[in-house]
C-alpha cells in the first residue's frame, strides 16, 4: 500500500474509534491530548479511561488535516458525505479544533434536518470546552442551539383561539417542555461554571452565562437571586476574576429592574419559571393549584415575559438589603485580600448601582435612607423593607424553604402594589433581630477609605483606595 493510502486507512480507523468510544460510554465528561510522540504497535491512539477520552498526540498531525480536508471537499460539493459520516467527522474535527466555525455550521444544518438533536450538540460543545474553555466559536454555536431549544419549547402558534381550545389537553406537553427548559438552563449554568473555573476571568464563559439568563430566564427573580447566592462562595475564592464579579453586578442590576417593574404592574399571579424551578425543594408544578395552571393562554414553558409576581417578589430580599450584603461582601474581601483591583472595581459598580437606585426610589421610601433611627415601624411590604442581621445565606435558604408553606397565604394577603396590608413575612423578618444601620452612603464610603489607608500595608491597596476616592469625588459626588 502507498504511504498515503496507509495513512488514510489509519485515520479512518481513528475516526471510527472516537465515535465508537462515545457509543460505548455516553458519560464521557472530559477530553484531552495524551502526550505520546510515537505510535505503539497496532494500538489505537484513542484511549478511554473511566469517563475521560484521550487522543495520543502522535496521530493528531495525520488526523486533523485528513478530517479537515474531507469536510471542505464536502462543503465545496466535490465529495459527498452522508449524514452519519458528517456527524462523525465534525465531532472529531471539533474535538481537535473547536474554533473551526464551518464545522459547527455543518452541524447546525444537520440539526435543522433532524439528523442531530440539540442535546447531542450541547454535549459535544461541553466536551470541547473542557479542553478549550474560552473557544469563542463553541460558545457562539451554543447560543444558536439554545435558541433552537427555546423555539421548540415555545407555544407553537400565536393563534389564541387555537391555544385556548388545546389548553388542558396540552398541559402535560407544556410541563414536559417546561422541565426540558429548566434542565437545559441548569446545565448551562454548570457548563459556564466549569469553564470559568478552568480559565481565569473567562470573558466568553461569563458573557454566555449572562446571555442565557437574558434569553432563557427573563424576569425570573428566583433564578436571579439563586445565582447571586450560589456565586458568593465562588467569587470569594476567585478574587481576581473580574468577569465573575461583573456577573454579580449584572444580577443586581437585573434584580433592580425586575423588582421595580413589578411595582408598576397590577395583574393576577401568572405561572412563571419562578414557580417551577428545579431548585425549589417542593415538587413543582402543583397540579390543581389554580394559580399554576396556564388557562391555555400562556405556557409555563416559555421564558416568562411578564413582570415578577408579588409571590416571586417575596422570595427575594429587598434591594437595600441586597446592596448592603453586596457591599459587606466587598468590604470583607477587600480587607482579607489587599491589593486586588477587581474588588475595588466591584465596589465602584455596586456603589454606583446603589446610588442610582436610591435616587430613583427615595420617593417610595417615606423615611429615606439618610435616617439614623432604626426602622422598626416600617410596614411597607414592598421594596423599602429594611435589611437585618441574619446571615445572607441564612436569609436566602429560610425564604426558599418557607416559600411554599406561605405561598397561598402570601397570595391572598399581599396587595399587589404593596401598600396597606401588613405583610406577615415582615413580622417574621422583624423577629430575626435588630436592623442594621442604614446601607452605605458617601460619608461612610469615605470613612471606609480612610480606615483602609490607615491600616494599609500593601502599596497597591493604598493606590486602589485613593483611586476609589478619586472616582467617588469625580463620578458620584456631583
Amino acid at each position: 500500500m502507498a504511504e498515503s493510502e496507509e495513512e488514510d486507512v489509519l485515520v479512518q480507523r481513528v475516526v471510527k474509534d472516537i465515535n465508537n468510544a462515545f457509543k460505548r460510554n455516553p458519560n464521557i465528561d472530559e477530553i484531552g491530548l495524551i502526550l505520546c510522540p510515537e505510535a505503539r504497535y497496532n494500538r489505537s491512539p484513542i484511549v478511554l479511561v473511566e469517563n475521560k477520552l484521550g487522543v495520543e498526540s502522535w496521530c493528531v498531525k495525520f488526523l486533523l488535516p485528513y478530517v479537515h480536508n474531507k469536510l471542505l471537499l464536502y462543503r465545496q460539493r466535490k465529495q459527498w458525505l452522508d449524514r452519519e459520516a458528517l456527524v462523525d467527522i465534525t465531532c472529531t474535527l471539533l474535538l481537535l479544533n473547536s474554533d473551526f466555525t464551518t464545522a459547527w455550521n455543518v452541524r447546525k444544518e444537520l440539526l435543522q434536518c433532524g439528523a442531530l438533536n440539540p442535546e447531542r450538540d450541547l454535549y459535544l460543545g461541553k466536551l470541547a470546552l473542557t479542553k478549550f474553555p474560552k473557544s469563542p466559536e463553541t460558545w457562539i454555536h451554543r447560543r444558536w442551539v439554545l435558541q433552537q431549544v427555546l423555539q421548540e419549547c415555545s407555544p407553537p402558534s400565536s393563534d389564541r383561539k387555537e391555544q385556548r381550545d388545546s389548553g388542558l389537553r396540552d398541559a402535560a406537553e407544556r410541563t414536559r417542555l417546561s422541565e426540558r427548559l429548566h434542565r437545559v438552563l441548569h446545565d448551562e449554568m454548570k457548563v459556564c461554571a466549569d469553564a470559568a473555573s478552568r480559565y481565569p476571568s473567562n470573558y466568553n464563559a461569563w458573557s454566555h452565562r449572562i446571555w442565557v439568563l437574558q434569553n432563557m430566564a427573563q424576569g425570573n427573580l428566583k433564578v436571579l437571586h439563586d445565582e447571586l447566592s450560589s456565586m458568593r462562595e465562588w467569587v470569594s475564592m476567585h478574587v481576581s476574576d473580574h468577569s465573575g464579579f461583573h456577573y454579580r453586578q449584572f444580577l443586581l442590576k437585573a434584580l433592580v429592574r425586575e423588582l421595580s417593574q413589578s411595582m408598576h404592574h397590577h395583574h393576577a399571579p401568572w405561572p412563571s419559571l419562578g414557580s417551577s424551578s428545579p431548585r425549589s425543594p417542593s415538587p413543582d408544578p402543583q397540579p390543581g393549584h389554580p394559580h399554576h395552571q396556564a388557562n391555555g393562554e400562556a405556557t409555563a414553558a416559555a421564558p416568562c415575559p411578564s413582570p415578577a409576581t408579588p409571590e416571586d417578589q417575596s422570595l427575594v430580599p429587598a434591594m437595600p438589603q441586597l446592596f448592603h450584603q453586596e457591599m459587606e461582601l466587598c468590604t470583607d474581601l477587600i480587607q482579607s485580600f489587599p491589593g486586588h483591583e477587581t474588588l475595588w472595581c466591584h465596589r465602584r459598580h455596586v456603589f454606583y448601582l446603589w446610588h442610582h437606585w436610591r435616587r430613583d426610589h427615595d420617593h417610595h421610601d417615606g423615611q429615606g435612607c439618610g435616617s439614623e433611627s432604626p426602622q422598626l415601624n416600617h410596614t411597607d411590604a414592598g421594596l423599602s423593607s429594611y435589611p437585618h442581621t441574619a446571615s445572607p445565606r441564612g436569609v436566602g435558604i429560610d425564604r426558599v424553604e418557607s416559600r411554599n408553606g406561605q405561598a397561598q397565604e402570601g397570595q391572598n394577603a399581599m396587595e399587589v402594589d404593596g401598600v396597606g396590608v401588613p405583610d406577615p413575612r415582615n413580622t417574621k423578618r422583624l423577629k430575626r433581630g435588630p436592623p442594621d444601620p442604614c446601607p452605605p452612603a458617601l460619608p461612610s464610603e469615605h470613612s471606609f477609605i480612610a480606615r483602609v489607608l490607615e491600616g494599609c500595608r500593601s502599596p497597591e491597596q493604598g493606590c486602589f483606595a485613593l483611586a476609589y476616592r478619586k472616582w467617588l469625588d469625580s463620578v458620584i459626588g456631583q
Partner: protein
Amino acid sequence: GTQVKDVVIKSDAPSALLLDKHADYIAAYGSKKDDYEYTLSEYLRMSGIYWGLTVMDLMGQLTRMNQQEISDFIKSCQHDCGGISASIGHDPHVLYTLSAVQILSLYDNVNVLDVDKMVEYVRGLQQEDGSFAGDKWGEIDTRFSFCAVATLALLGRLDAINMDKAVEFVLSCMNFDGGFGCRPGSESHAGQIYCCTGFLSIAGQLHQVNADLLGWWLCERQLPSGGLNGRPEKLPDVCYSWWVLASLKIIGRIHWIDKSKLRSFILACQDEETGGFADRPGDMVDPFHTLFGVAGLSLLGEGQIKDVNPVLCMPEDVLERLGLHPDLLS
C-alpha cells in the same frame, strides 16, 4: 503586600526595533502550507493575510508579498450571497468580508470582487434593533457592527444601512464605566471598546462617548511593566497595545498613557532570533501580535514605521488615497 498581575521585563530583553527581522518572518510565514498549525488556523486565514500584509505595508515591504496569488485567493472566497469566507470552502462571515476589503484596499483592487453583492450581504446582516449579526446564523456582537461599517466605509457605501439604528444599538452597549461590551449588559473589554469607538468614529458620533471616563478606564490598563491589559487583573498583552492605544487615540486621550514605558514593553515582546512579536516577552511569536506590536509603535510615533490609522488599522496613506478621514476627538 500582593503581587500585582504583571510581567517582569528582563534586563536582556530586546530594546531596539528589529524591523528587517519582522519583515523576513512575515514573508516566510505560511510557506509550508501543510504545516499542522497552519491547518488549525485556516478558519481565520483571511484575517491572517490582512495582519501579514498590513504589517508589511507599515514597514514599507508590501512588494515582497504575492499580490496576484492573494487576489485570486480572495476572489475564490466570495460566495453567492456576496459574503466572503476565511478560506476556500469555508462559510462566509462579516469578519472575513472586512479583512478581504482591507487587503484589496491595500492593493487598490477591490473590484476583483462583486462589490454590490457584498454590500447587500452586509446590509442583510443588520437586525431590527440596529445590531449586526456575524453571518446568517445570527450571533450578535458589537464587533460585527464595527466590521459592517468599516467594510462599507472602505467601499464608500455607508448609506446601505440604517446608521441611526446601528448607533442606537452600539450606545446601548455602553457601560457605567464608559466602556463597551459585546452585547447590552456585557462586561467592558478593551477589544470591544476599540470596535465601538471605531464604529462611533465612522458613524460621526464620537461626541456620545464620555471621553474622560473611558479614557480613565483605558489608562488604568497600564501596568508597572509598561504593558497594557484588556481588563482589570489580566496580564499585559501586546495586542492590547493596539486595542487600548488606538481607542485612546480615537477619543483624544493618548497622552494619558506613559508612552516610553509602553514602548519598552512592546520592544521587549520581539523575538530576536525568529523575528516577529509575541503576546508578552519570551513567548512564541505570531503574525497577529506582530501587526499590533508594530501598529502600536506607529501610534507612539516610531519614525521607521508608516503612520497607521487608529480606526481602521491600515496605513494612513491608503486611506488618504481613498479619501477616508474618520473622526478623532481632540
